[in-house]
């Protein structure tokens, strides 16, 4: 039965964290906090996807904002202009993610580190420019009156309802991310970062591994974007800037690269910290930026790795792994 026990140990913290997230609206009924809670969960989905590229494969992409935006626009335009059911629109969104993954994966095969960051920035700017200037995407005003998701006439049109809808998606994506993190794909992604040449002579096509990472990440990003469009009900191109792409990467770095818990922690910190700092007055954005910069410089391995180290010490003192779940709870309370 040892196997069973270790399984429980592994799943329990995840379960505790999901419970904490699902109970969040019970304690904070305020619509404002609910909106930020939704935002945080969407960030979680994007961060989990981005982790395959930045965290595991070690490629610095600064184009995630555009991926998120393209997902949002695909779903929003289909449902407003053609009247496609939002659920059906998820299929083109997935296709969109798949296409972006292939498209962004291609330059990653040819250009080196910083150059690749520049290509992705260019991608983000091209997309944002087109979204802002094309008439068909609604120019600068964006898309309005996007219908919400609905099942048999039950509309997910309030913050609370949307919260649980996004939560359901989050659960699905967490399961996918965890399964990938347990599989040979995680090893392949990390091997790409550590030593692509050695991976190649081990019989693995490095290009296809890289493109797989990008495809996965873009699909996560696009679906999150589509959820965002139907949750927020209107979208403007000014949301999907390079700054947004940067905050996605910052989430990963703050949490700790290549680490599942780090993604979740980072997403919640980036979503909630600015709101908490609002009480500090007009300079809260500056304080936030300084904190983020210091976090990146002082904890290059992520805050999560430091928490883990101290938790590890506690476990070694014989307190059991349930402590891991405790962190999850604290985090959502942020």
């Amino acid at each position, binding site marked *: 039965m040892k196997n069973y026990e270790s399984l429980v140990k592994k799943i329990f913290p995840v379960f505790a964290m999901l419970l904490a997230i699902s109970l969040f609206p019970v304690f904070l009924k305020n619509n404002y906090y609910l909106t930020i809670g939704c935002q945080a969960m969407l960030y979680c989905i994007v961060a989990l996807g981005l982790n395959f590229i930045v965290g595991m494969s070690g490629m610095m992409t600064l184009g995630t904002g555009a991926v998120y935006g393209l997902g949002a626009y695909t779903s929003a335009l289909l449902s407003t202009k053609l009247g496609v059911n939002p659920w059906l629109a998820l299929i083109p969104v997935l296709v969109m993610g798949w296409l972006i993954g292939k498209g962004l994966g291609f330059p990653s095969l040819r250009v080196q580190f910083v150059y690749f960051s520049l290509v992705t920035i260019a991608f983000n700017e091209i997309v944002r420019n087109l979204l802002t200037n094309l008439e068909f995407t609604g120019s600068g005003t964006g898309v309005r009156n996007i219908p919400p998701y609905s099942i048999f006439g039950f509309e997910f049109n309030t913050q609370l309802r949307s919260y649980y809808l996004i939560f359901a998606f989050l659960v699905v994506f967490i399961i*996918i991310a965890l*399964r*990938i993190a*347990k*599989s*040979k*794909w995680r*090893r*392949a992604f*990390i*091997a790409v*970062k*550590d*030593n692509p*040449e*050695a*991976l*190649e*002579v*081990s*019989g*693995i*096509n*490095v290009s296809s591994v890289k493109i*797989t990472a990008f*495809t*996965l990440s873009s699909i996560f990003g696009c679906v999150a974007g589509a959820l965002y469009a139907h949750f927020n009900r209107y979208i403007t191109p000014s949301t999907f800037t390079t700054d947004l792409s940067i905050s996605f990467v910052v989430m990963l770095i703050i949490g700790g690269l*290549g680490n599942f818990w780090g993604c979740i922690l980072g997403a919640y910190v980036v979503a909630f910290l600015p709101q908490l700092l609002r009480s500090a007055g007009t300079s809260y954005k500056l304080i936030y930026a300084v904190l983020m910069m210091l976090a990146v410089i002082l904890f290059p391995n992520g805050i999560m790795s430091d928490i883990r180290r101290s938790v590890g010490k506690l476990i070694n003192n014989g307190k059991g792994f349930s402590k891991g779940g405790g962190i999850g709870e604290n985090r959502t309370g942020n």
Partner: protein
Amino acid sequence: MKTVLEIKNLTKRFEGLVAVKDVNITVKERQIHALIGPNGAGKTTTLSMINGTLEPTSGKILFGGQDITGMPAYKIAQKGLGRTFQNIKVFGSLTALENLMVGAMHNNNKGGVLRMLLCVKETNAMERTMREQALEVINEIGIYRLKDEYARNLPYGSQKVLELGRALMGKPKMILLDEPAAGLNTSERAEFVEILEKMYEKGIDLFLIEHNMDVVMNISHMITVLNFGQKIAEGTPSQIQSNPEVIRAYLGNRYKTIRKTEESRGNANAGR
């Protein structure tokens, strides 16, 4: 004896510099074949062309009767041609066991991510076979106690063995080794040679580059000597040791006498 690996008129040019020129090597089945030569003779270049990391300027490479010239490296590896590197290339942020499991990935790579997500049972079974195979190999190469250490924290010798283990995981017909004994101390080297011999007995052919003459002369059946990108001799160890051109180009006139004195002292590991 059947031919496993055949290299025909292999040439590599780097912008005017000819690194390898018109080299012909035939490796027979069930043999340990060594490639020796002074620094800059084009040995590693030859190896890289065989396993596909470098594209030859001209010439042909046949593996098991099949033309593999210019094929991408991963396809050549899938055909059963493993390789290790002179400067160790392990995956530092994976554990030793996971490093080995990467080596087995191409044999257990049915379908993409979607299939993995949908067919839970199949994936788990594959994962288990990979892990079991990795445990077996890690035992064989003698670093079982280090299996959960990150590869970057392993000592140099263990990293070297680990790289060999990763090549073994792909169930290769032949492994190309680039200076397997370089940087190892006397006891490590003996251990490594033992592993190599074990592998050979299990039915894997070896093709190695080596500077350490005692390793080469002890374990190889056939030796090819390169100098300035050209083959200058080929033959059994005893033939090579008495070949005047080889002695002039590489071994040095003193080699034979040194070797004799070392042997008389009973030390098999000196005399580079």
